[in-house]
């Protein structure tokens, strides 16, 4: 039998030293942004019952989850998402809490990615959920927090908004099977114009099919809204577009002149519990979105508590990758001093080291039994000061 005792499973990796510093810096930066807006942290278990993710709308296909069973044979999964567990908590322990609830999290999710694709199965995410407000100001708060989260890393970014309502309105008017609706969604998502046109042509020519054909092309700046209104003459859609346009303009104003806001009416993702505005964030130099979120007013009601919500998650792994790719490694921390104890003076040395630490220094205890090795070690590790504790005297060099 082959042993796997020296490697980690595919899609996972160990983080060492500088990598940990980057990881924690990202997490702390985001946590600071969230908590300065009054968001409180919540930690949910890494293991959940599969049922939490198997609601009516089946957001997470079983094949993509890490599955295991508990001692009673019940199906558990490694959490593939943080929003659903948080919805569960809101519908149970926080049911009587004052609204709106502002929750933030910083934890890992687990999904099986295809092997040998260079993707992680274990992804650190930090995000917020704003629960209990349907007001525009709630969307604005979440969007502006998303912008600040992307801005915080000092790289070129872009925030994109969309609205699932446009697609849902249009496709709702088609008399086709759910299977066909899903096919249409997939083709719009991948902006596969040739296949989308073929499929919609087979459903006949109507203003709705014409509009759906154009949907994936409706992305870019403010001009998209005029184009969309012209192409989709529908009262309900117009209402959604007006709402989104307002949001877009507000965000552009917040973002300043070098506006990095864009709109894509063809954002129609899978695992979609979204009911309203959808957001995606991109960083220059990373091939996939680093931030995603949106409004999900119906999700928590699937846990038995009807309350609207909006939020987003930042893919911490992705941000880390971009930072590392750009060579922005932080300086490794090093000790300011190392304290060496002559035989019999160990306690005095430990006390001496503690005194130095109280002065704010980073101090190592020397773990060798001769001073020469200590000096070599200090040189290797660039520790400026070697302290030798010898009986009553203390000698510094």
């Amino acid at each position, binding site marked *: 039998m082959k042993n796997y005792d020296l490697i980690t499973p595919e899609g996972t990796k160990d983080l060492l030293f500088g990598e940990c510093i980057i990881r924690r810096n990202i997490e702390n930066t985001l946590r600071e942004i969230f908590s300065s807006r009054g968001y409180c942290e919540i930690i949910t278990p890494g293991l959940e019952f599969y049922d939490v993710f198997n609601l009516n709308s089946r957001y997470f296909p079983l094949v993509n989850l890490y599955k295991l069973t508990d001692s009673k044979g019940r199906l558990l999964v490694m959490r593939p998402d943080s929003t659903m567990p948080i919805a569960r908590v809101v519908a149970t322990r926080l049911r009587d809490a004052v609204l709106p609830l502002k929750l933030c999290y910083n934890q890992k999710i687990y999904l099986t990615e295809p092997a040998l*694709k*260079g993707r992680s199965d274990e992804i650190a995410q930090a995000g917020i959920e704003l629960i209990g407000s349907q007001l525009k100001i709630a969307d604005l708060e979440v969007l502006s927090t998303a912008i600040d989260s992307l801005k915080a890393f000092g790289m070129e970014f*872009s925030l*994109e908004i969309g609205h699932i309502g446009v697609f849902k309105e249009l496709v709702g008017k088609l008399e086709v099977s759910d299977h066909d609706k899903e096919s249409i969604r997939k083709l719009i998502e*991948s*902006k*596969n*114009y*040739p*296949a989308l046109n073929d499929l919609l042509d087979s459903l006949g020519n109507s203003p709705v099919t014409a509009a759906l054909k154009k949907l994936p092309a409706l*992305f*870019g700046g403010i001009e998209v809204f005029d184009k969309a209104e012209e192409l989709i003459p529908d009262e309900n859609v117009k209402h959604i577009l007006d709402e989104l346009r307002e949001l877009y303009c507000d965000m552009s104003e917040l973002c300043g002149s070098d506006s990095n806001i*864009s709109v*894509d009416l063809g954002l129609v993702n899978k695992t979609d519990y979204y009911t309203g505005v959808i957001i995606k964030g*991109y960083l*220059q*130099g*990373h*091939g*996939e*979105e680093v931030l995603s979120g949106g409004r999900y007013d119906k999700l928590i009601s699937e846990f038995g508590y009807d309350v609207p919500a909006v939020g987003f998650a930042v893919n911490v792994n992705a941000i880390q990758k971009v930072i590392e790719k750009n060579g922005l490694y932080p300086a490794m921390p090093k000790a300011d001093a190392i304290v060496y104890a002559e035989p019999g003076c160990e306690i005095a040395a430990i006390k001496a080291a503690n005194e130095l630490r109280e002065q704010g220094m980073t101090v190592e205890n020397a773990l060798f039994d001769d001073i020469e090795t200590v000096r070599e070690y200090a040189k290797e590790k660039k520790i400026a000061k070697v302290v030798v504790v010898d009986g009553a005297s203390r000698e510094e060099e």
Partner: protein
Amino acid sequence: MDKPIRIALTKGRLEKDTVGLLEKLGFDCTAVREKGRKLILPVPDANLEVVLAKANDVITYVEHGVCDMGVVGKDTIMEMKGKFFELVDLGFGRCKFALATKKGYDFYRGYGVKTIATKYPNVARSFFEKKGMDTEIIKIEGSVELAPLLELADGIVDIVETGTTLKENGLEVIEDVAPISARLIVNTVSLKMRQAEIEALIEKIQANL
């Protein structure tokens, strides 16, 4: 000048057809034509950088965003799947996936589970899954036509262009699986971050198809 847009081309026929198309647009592709052993080549007047890769790798590079765009056959897209925008059917590289058996063989007769040999196990699996039909799929790397002749398989799912190879080996197409042609794919972030440049290029391409 901005960083060039990187486009990955599937080496071989699709590469030649794409270079032909770029030249039709008026771009100077001398460097690509006289590439030698180089794998990354500039098309300076289009601010493009051509990367030459195997079909599967074109998708991998585009998915990761290290190439902004790619030209790859629908056959590879169907087999590999992946997350990218599939914007244009370039029209060249036309052929089809088909199910073929030995001439005169009644494939759908009987209740025995049929064995299919193919280079494209995912395409074959999803074709028969849609029919609700259990099959045993065997992956073959070289000439798939051999498998039914050697009686390893009842049929094959493979790319068919003219059908000559099939005919010469006593096989025939009994069902089409899907049409194939070259597609222009684009990384999901690149399309957004470099929308103007990419859209301009695509418009030009579409006008010249």
